Structure formats: structure tokens, C-alpha cells
């Protein structure tokens, strides 16, 4: 029986190559896209799930009420918090601090740049980072280090790493560590990522603020005791706020900050470790929680479109196969047997598509990885039982949906009507039309979302930020050079007199995301005329305004001619407003020492455009050791200028890596996740429209075949070619129009929600939807007219004779 089914399915495939191609082709592409996106989503969801204690592990954050009634959340905590948690909160089992940074590591004259994690001893008991060999208690010793297997291999090759001594640069310090143990590599789906692990006390040794409650810079994790509830822990932690942060609380009260909804000015909160990958409150968060969902939704949409084609084609074809179905019934086939037959046909088609889809996925995987910054490998994907069973389950579901429905419908045909050739088409085409509408709604939705995403992304990249982003190169200074501190002056000397170089300056904060990874910023709060003032703070060298092209609106730039400028600051307009001074020049700020304002610059966007720009104070530190050096170059030949800067840099730092980049590249990097969203959306839209059109094409072929006689008669009666094309196209274009009407409000709503994430965003324009709609109609029209023109040009005698 099964062989009979397979045989007939195979013959059907061979006989209807166009339909088979459309079915298999569409399904293959859909499966490939869905597979890749679902794997990506699965990867995102698997983040931090490998910790065996994850149900009792939390990251600590703090919620702080602001004078304007809003609240800010932060996950940076003072160093003594951890000890306080362990000693004063009875429901906390243990806690650890954690911090990581990229440092240069050297051994035997070989220097590598690696991420070093600093953690307390409890870290390894709380988190599941297994140690492969060596001493489990390595973190108890300040001068010992745990390294990952991969790093061990990179540094030591085949030597035994244990008890070898490596040198690590920690700012001004150069520290020697003995390798105490080797750890398993940190899995890719871990939010906490490091190549080496050393004790937290060695970080404190470097920073030296072990007991200060006012310097908040460290992530803190805790493990809740069994049977202890989170609210209980939070209550105990609130006690710490009142005990250790009374000074801050008093300052806030004096500034008139109103308590938040829980009646507190400062509140601790706990984020489950399993969720921090998606939790914006954590600095370790990767992407928004909706990204994996978005990937899954797009997968489902694309699969739905392909399945829609499948159903439409099987249904359409079943009318031509009605005779066979009726005869089988007359020969004694039961309903279940007919369903089994048609289902097995779709099973075969889907099976071929699945195989082809996996092969296709393997081919595009490198591009996919590059596009979305993943490191998937086909072999490791399919070694996961979960993914494998997910694929099988998804596949069965698709065959049931795509093959089951038509099979069930077909089996219900009235046998006699079929045998008499009286099968009506009208009733069934409602379902067909609904499917076409759904397909095109999805396609139009994705097209309009893509256009809006793209507009916003272009806007983010091209909006004037108040400084020169195109002609300024930013160079992160690595730790070794930072220690010497003469990089800026040496670069100035080297580049002096070069006509391509306009100005060189330095700062402790970068603009955008540099190649060294991440951004940094500093905020200071202080009292001005009896009021608390909070502002962003940036320390710079001479020529900063000129280099970045900031516009002075009042006062003057820093100048080497004023010796008093060592205590001078320049503020932006928002800061002037914050101070409440009409003429802020000469105003005295008492922060960490006294500063006087010498100039006011126009507001500029030193943060991402997701945030409103805020008050900013720029402090001059003559002869500072900047962490970032900025070089303004001549716009005439940017690549040449970059080459010159790079060459100059190598004379200063012959061993180090040059990580300089133009500021507009840095700004692009800030919007990586938006760019990624746009890419996902574009690929989804393209695939959706292509598969929908394939389906539309096939339906057009079927409908034209069914209306062959009508077309013939109309031609004999004198209908023109364009008249016939319109006749056929009209029906379909009406469906596409309905799809546009459905998709437009949905797209508008979704995009408005998304745009609200940005402090600066475009307005959604009506013509975007018009454009998306026209695109869909034009593509659909071309798809249909291809077949209908052919039908209209056919000799009518031919179609009439066959009757």
C-alpha cells in the first residue's frame, strides 16, 4: 500500500514539474530560513541556562529615584556590598563580585590580548564553570590565575601550563600570576565571558577602593539559600541601603527627590541569572528579549507562506485529480486511506524540501554567521538532541498542516459529483483566497517594516550629532602605552606639519563604540548653589573642541595661554540650563576641587540617539594620559589620512595593535542591534515576497487552466489580449489590495512601538505604506500577467477543441 502511494506520488511529481518545483522550491527556502533563524533564537534562549544553580542565582541591581520623578536602574555596586550581603543578609547563601576587561597578557616574550575576569572565591561554587586540572582554590591566592583550555593552548602550546608564570598589565601595574589551574572554555552562550580568571582582591589592589560605599563599579551576584524567598532577601537588602547609604539618601532628600512607588529612594532588586541576557538592567545583557521571538515569528511567517502555497496547490490540483479520488472511493477506499495517500504525498514533498533546506542552510551558514555575528557550525547544530528533535517535530507539524488539510478536504468530496465531473470550484476558492491574502499580508507587513527600519537606521547614521563624525579618527590607547602616558604628545610630534592632519587631542571617553569594544562614560553629581546637579563628565586635552568640531556659543576654548585653565571647564547648553545661569561664564563648580566655566558649547549627542542628550561638562587636564586619542584629518583623502595615522601610531607603539577607526564607524557600531534587526527583516521580506509570488504564479496557472474554455470563447467573441489579462489579474489584485489594507495598520502599530525606543526618531510617513503596497501589487501583477498573457495569446481553437 505504502509503495503504491509513494509510486503514485512520485509519478505525480514528475508529471507536474512546475508545481513540484514551486512546492519544493518554496518550501526549501522557507525551511532553510526558518532553520537558521530558529537556531539563532534557540542559541539566544540558551544563554546562561547551563548553570546548575541558576534557579537560585541572581544579579543585584539598584533602582534610584530621580528628582524628575523617573527612576534609573544600575547594576554597578560598591565593593563592600558583597561582604555585607554574606554577613548581614541571613537568606543569602553566598555572593560574588565580578568585573572583566581586556588586558595584554605576556609569556616568554609573546603578548596576547585576553579578557580577564575578576571574581571572588564563591564565584566558582555559584556558577558552573568547571575546572579541568589544577587547584580548585586558585582564586584564594592573589597571585594565581585560572586560564581556559583555549587560552592555555594559545599561550603555552603543548607545554603544561600549570605553575607557569605569566605577566598581566593592570593599568599602571604589571603583575605576575602563576597558573593555578585550567578551566573548561566558557560556553558561547554565557553572558559572563572570560579567558582567564583571577581573584577579585587583585583588582581591588589595583583600584584601591575596597571599603568605599560611594564608588560603584562592580557587578554583584548572589545565591539565595534554599527555601528563602526573593522578597525576603530584598527586605534584608533594604536594611543595607539604610545602613550604608544614609549619606546619599540625605542628599537625595535634600534635592527633593520623591520616593518611588514602593516608598523608597533607593531600592535593591534581583534579576534571575537565567534572564540577564535579555535584561536591559544588566550590563551583561546581549539583545532585547523580543529578538529571538522576532526570529521565531518570521520563521513561522515564512513557513506559513510556503505551507499556504502547498495547500493551495494541492487543493487546486485535486480538482484535476478528482476522477482518481472518486474512482478510488468507488473501489472501496476508506476516508482514512485517502487521507493517508495524500498526506504521504505531501510528506514526500516536504521530506525532499527538508533535505534540500538543510543542504541550502549549510551552504549559506557562513554568510549567515557573518551577517548576524554568530559562530554556528552545521556539525555542532545537529549534534544537539534538542535541536534535532525540534526539527523533526517542526517537520511533522508542517506536513500535517500543509498536507493534512487538503487531504482531509479531498477525502470529503462527494464521490458521485466527482465521477460526474460536477465538482464545484466556487466554494473552495474562498479558502484559497484567504490563504493568498494571508501570504501577501505577511509580505506587505515585512516590506513596510523593512522600509521604516531602514529609514530610521539611515536617520540614526546621518543625523547631525553636533560634532564632526566623518573626519575624526579615534584611537583607543592600550594599557601598556597608557602607562607610559606620552602617546598623545608623541603622536602630536610625529604628525606635526603633515598637511592631512588638522588637529590632535585626547579624552578619557570615546564617541560611539570603538574597536576596543564598548563605550564608557562618567557621571558626576555635586552641589551648586544649594542644589544637587548631575551631569556627564569628560576629561580632555587641549584642542578638543577643534578636533571634534564642537561649536562654541559663548566664552572661549581652552587655551595654553591661560595658566588658570588647569581648573577650567567647558559646559554644554543643557548644563548651563541645569545650573540655572543665564550667563554661566565664570561660574564656579565645586566637584572634586573647584572649577570655573570658561565656555559653552552647543549641545551634542555624546550618547546613542536612543537617549536624549544630557548636560555635559568637559574638563581640561593639561598633559593628561588619555584613554582615547582623536585625530581630525583633511576630508580630501580619508583613506590616505587613516594610513598616515596608522603609520605614525606604529612608530609609537610598534608591538601593539592599531585599533583606530573613524567616528562614523564607531557610531555605526552603536546601532549594530538595529542594523541586525533591519537585516533580519529584509531577508524575511525578500523570502516572503518570493515564495508568495511563486504560489501566486502557480495558482494563476491553475485558474487559467480551469478557465481555458472561457478564455477561448471570449477570444472568439472578440476580446483583446489586454482585456483577458485584466480579467484574470483583477481577481488576484483585489486579494493583494485586501492584504495591503490588513497589513498597513499592523505595520504602523508595530513600528510606532519600536520607534518609541529612540529619543530621536523619524515620523512614520503615509507614503511608506503606499510604496510597500505598490511594490506588492507590481510584483504580483507581473507574476500573474506572465501566465495570463500566454493564455490570452493562445489560439482559441486549441482550447475549445479539447472540450
Amino acid at each position, binding site marked *: *500500500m505504502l509503495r*503504491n502511494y509513494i*509510486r*503514485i506520488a512520485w*509519478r*505525480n511529481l514528475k*508529471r507536474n514539474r512546475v508545481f513540484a518545483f514551486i512546492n519544493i522550491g518554496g518550501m526549501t527556502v522557507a525551511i532553510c530560513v526558518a532553520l537558521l533563524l530558529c537556531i539563532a533564537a534557540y542559541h539566544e534562549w540558551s544563554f546562561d541556562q547551563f548553570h546548575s544553580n541558576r534557579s537560585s542565582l541572581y544579579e543585584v541591581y539598584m533602582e534610584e529615584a530621580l528628582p524628575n520623578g523617573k527612576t534609573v536602574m544600575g547594576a554597578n555596586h560598591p565593593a563592600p556590598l558583597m561582604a555585607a550581603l554574606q554577613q548581614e543578609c541571613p537568606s543569602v547563601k553566598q555572593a560574588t563580585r565580578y568585573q572583566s576587561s581586556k588586558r595584554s597578557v605576556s609569556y616568554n616574550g609573546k603578548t596576547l590580548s585576553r579578557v580577564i575576569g575578576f571574581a571572588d572565591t564563591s564565584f566558582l561554587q555559584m556558577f558552573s564553570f568547571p575546572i579541568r586540572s589544577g587547584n580548585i582554590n586558585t582564586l584564594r591566592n592573589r597571585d594565581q590565575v585560572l586560564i581556559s583550555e583555549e587560552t592555555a593552548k594559545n599561550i603555552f602550546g603543548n607545554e603544561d601550563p600549570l605553575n607557569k608564570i605569566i605577566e598581566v598589565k593592570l593599568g599602571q601595574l604589571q603583575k605576575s600570576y602563576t597558573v593555578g589551574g585550567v578551566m573548561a572554555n566558557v560556553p558561547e552562550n554565557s553572558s559572563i565571558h572570560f579567558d582567564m580568571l583571577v581573584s577579585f582582591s587583585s583588582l581591588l589592589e589595583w583600584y584601591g577602593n575596597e571599603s568605599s560605599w560611594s564608588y560603584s563599579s562592580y557587578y554583584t551576584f548572589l545565591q539565595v539559600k534554599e527555601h528563602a524567598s526573593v522578597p525576603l532577601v530584598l527586605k534584608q537588602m533594604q536594611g543595607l541601603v539604610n545602613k550604608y547609604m544614609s549619606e546619599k539618601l540625605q542628599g537625595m532628600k535634600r534635592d527633593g527627590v520623591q520616593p518611588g512607588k514602593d516608598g523608597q529612594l533607593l531600592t535593591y532588586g534581583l534579576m534571575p541569572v537565567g534572564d540577564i541576557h535579555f535584561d536591559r538592567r544588566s550590563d551583561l545583557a546581549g539583545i532585547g528579549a523580543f529578538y529571538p521571538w522576532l526570529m521565531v515569528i518570521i520563521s513561522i511567517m515564512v513557513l506559513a507562506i510556503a505551507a499556504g502555497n502547498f495547500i493551495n496547490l494541492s487543493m487546486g490540483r485535486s480538482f484535476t485529480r478528482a*476522477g*482518481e479520488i*472518486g*474512482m*478510488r472511493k*468507488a*473501489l*472501496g*477506499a*476508506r476516508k482514512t*486511506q485517502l487521507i493517508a495517500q495524500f498526506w504521504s504525498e505531501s510528506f514526500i514533498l516536504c521530506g525532499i524540501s527538508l533535505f534540500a533546506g538543510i543542504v541550502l542552510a549549510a551552504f549559506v551558514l557562513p554568510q549567515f554567521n557573518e551577517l548576524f555575528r554568530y559562530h554556528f557550525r552545521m556539525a555542532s547544530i545537529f549534534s544537539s538532541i534538542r535541536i534535532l528533535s525540534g526539527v523533526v517535530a517542526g517537520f511533522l507539524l508542517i506536513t500535517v498542516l500543509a498536507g493534512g488539510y487538503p487531504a482531509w478536504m479531498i477525502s470529503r468530496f462527494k*464521490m*458521485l459529483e466527482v*465521477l460526474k465531473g460536477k465538482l464545484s470550484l466556487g466554494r473552495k476558492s474562498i479558502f484559497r483566497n484567504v490563504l493568498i491574502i494571508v501570504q501577501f499580508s505577511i509580505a506587505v507587513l515585512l516590506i513596510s517594516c523593512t522600509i521604516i527600519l531602514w529609514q530610521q537606521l539611515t536617520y540614526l547614521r546621518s543625523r547631525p550629532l553636533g560634532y564632526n563624525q566623518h573626519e575624526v579618527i579615534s584611537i583607543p590607547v592600550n594599557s601598556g602605552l597608557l602607562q607610559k602616558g606620552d602617546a598623545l604628545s608623541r603622536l602630536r610630534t610625529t604628525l606635526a606639519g603633515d598637511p592631512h592632519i588638522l588637529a590632535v587631542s585626547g579624552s578619557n571617553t570615546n564617541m560611539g563604540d570603538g574597536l576596543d569594544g564598548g563605550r564608557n562614560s562618567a557621571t558626576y553629581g555635586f552641589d551648586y548653589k544649594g542644589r544637587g546637579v548631575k551631569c556627564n563628565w569628560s576629561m580632555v586635552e587641549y584642542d578638543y573642541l577643534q578636533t571634534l568640531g564642537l561649536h562654541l556659543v559663548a566664552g572661549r576654548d581652552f587655551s595654553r595661554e591661560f595658566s588658570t585653565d588647569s581648573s577650567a571647564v567647558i559646559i554644554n547648553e543643557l548644563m548651563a540650563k541645569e545650573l540655572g545661569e543665564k550667563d554661566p561664564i565664570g561660574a564656579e563648580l565645586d566637584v572634586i576641587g573647584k572649577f570655573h566655566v570658561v565656555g559653552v558649547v552647543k549641545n551634542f549627542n555624546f550618547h546613542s540617539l536612543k537617549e536624549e542628550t544630557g548636560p555635559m561638562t568637559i574638563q581640561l587636564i593639561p598633559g593628561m594620559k588619555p584613554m582615547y586619542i582623536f585625530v581630525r584629518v583633511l576630508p580630501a583623502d580619508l583613506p590616505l589620512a587613516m594610513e598616515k595615522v596608522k603609520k605614525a601610531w606604529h612608530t609609537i607603539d610598534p608591538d601593539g595593535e592599531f585599533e583606530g577607526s573613524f567616528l562614523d564607524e564607531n557610531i555605526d557600531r552603536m546601532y549594530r542591534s538595529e542594523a541586525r534587526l533591519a537585516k533580519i527583516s529584509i531577508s524575511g521580506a525578500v523570502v516572503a515576497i518570493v515564495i508568495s509570488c511563486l504560489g501566486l504564479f502557480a495558482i494563476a496557472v491553475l485558474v487559467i487552466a480551469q478557465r481555458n474554455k472561457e478564455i477561448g470563447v471570449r477570444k472568439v467573441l472578440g476580446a483583446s489580449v489586454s482585456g483577458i489579462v485584466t480579467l484574470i489579474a483583477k481577481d488576484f489584485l483585489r486579494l493583494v489590495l485586501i492584504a495591503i489594507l490588513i497589513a498597513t495598520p499592523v505595520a504602523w502599530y508595530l513600528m510606532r512601538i519600536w520607534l518609541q525606543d529612540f529619543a530621536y526618531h523619524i515620523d512614520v510617513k503615509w507614503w511608506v505604506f503606499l510604496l510597500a503596497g505598490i511594490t506588492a501589487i507590481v510584483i504580483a501583477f507581473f507574476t500573474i500577467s506572465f501566465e495570463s498573457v500566454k493564455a490570452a495569446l493562445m489560439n482559441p481553437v486549441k482550447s475549445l477543441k479539447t472540450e
Partner: protein
Amino acid sequence: MIQLRHISKYYPVGFGKNEILKDIDLRIFEGEFVSIMGPSGSGKSTLLHIMGLLEEPNQGEYLFDGEPVHKMNEKKRTQLHRGAIGFVFQAYHLIDELTVYENIETPLLYKNVPAAERKSRVADILDRFNIVAKKDLFPSQLSGGQQQLVGIARALVGEPKVILADEPTGNLHSDQAKEIMELFKQLNEKDKITIVQVTHSEVNAGYGHRIIQIRDGKIA
């Protein structure tokens, strides 16, 4: 064998109804060869369809082998289809995608006949109808008469008690028609198969033992 009592069949048309069959009483005995004749639209095909369980009457009782068919459920009807009744159609209704061999084999597949037996039964039939050479051809490669021969072979392979034939020679020229009718006669006499055929032709009707005339939904 077949017993129809007060069978009526009608379709609703507007507010009234279009009566096809009016109060038909008919009895066909085992081993009979009956021809049903009548003008177009007289209801003869509908009568045959009712006998073959392809259509249900609006009123009346139908006993097949003494069993009330009108009270049977779907499953039992299917069993009757499979076991007791063979169909032959005017338009042959062979399955285009299957070869001659596979077409004949299909009813046996639905009856769950074991593979070895299936093979021998299909081979017997092919042999008997002299179409062994054509077993791997597709229906479109055969002439009309040959296709109908395959159609009859397919009806017979399930070893039915009754063959219901709806104008089996309607699409054939007279030589071929004669061949088919001779075959029916032989099946009826040698194999004791009950045959009911609907036909327009007096000649073909003459092969049967009994002619039933139908006019305006009634037996004349």
C-alpha cells in the same frame, strides 16, 4: 440478491422538488443478467447508483443479500463496496497515474489482500483477458475498448457478486461493444456473476435475461 422497496429519489428545485425516481419496487435475483433501458433523464443511472451505494434514496428500503443497506453505517457500506460490488463506467475511470497492472491491483490493496495472492489474482485476470502484454502501459496508451477491458478486469479482480455497469459500451464502436457484451454474457453464465447494466442499445439489452424499462422515474 437486490431488493428495492418503494424507493424514491428527488432533488429540491426552488420551492418544489424534482422527482427522479418515484416509488420503485424491484427485485433482482442471484445469477440474473438484467438490462435497464429508458430515455435520457428517465432516472436509470440514478437507479444504478442507488444499487451501487453511490447515492442514497430519499425514501424506501434497500436489501442487499437480505441485509438492509439503508441501515448500514459507513464502514459496512465500504465493505460492501470492496467485497460484493464491482463497477464498470462508461468513461472507464481508470487512474491515469497507474499502469494497467496497478489499476487492477488497487481494489485488492484496499481489501488488504496479501501481496503474493494479489500478484497471482492480478496475473490470472490479465491472462484471462489476454492483456498480459499491456500490463505495464498507462491508460492513455490504450484504445477505448482496451481501457474498458481493463475497467472490467478491475471490477472483477475483487470477485464481486454483482457487477453494475453504467453504459459500458457507450464510448465504444460496435465491434468492441460486441466483444464486451460477449464477455459479460460469459461472466454471467460461467462465473455466475449477477450483472445489471444500463444501456441505450436494444442489441446490448438483448444479451440480458430481462429488460427493465424506466420512464419518468417509474418502471414501465
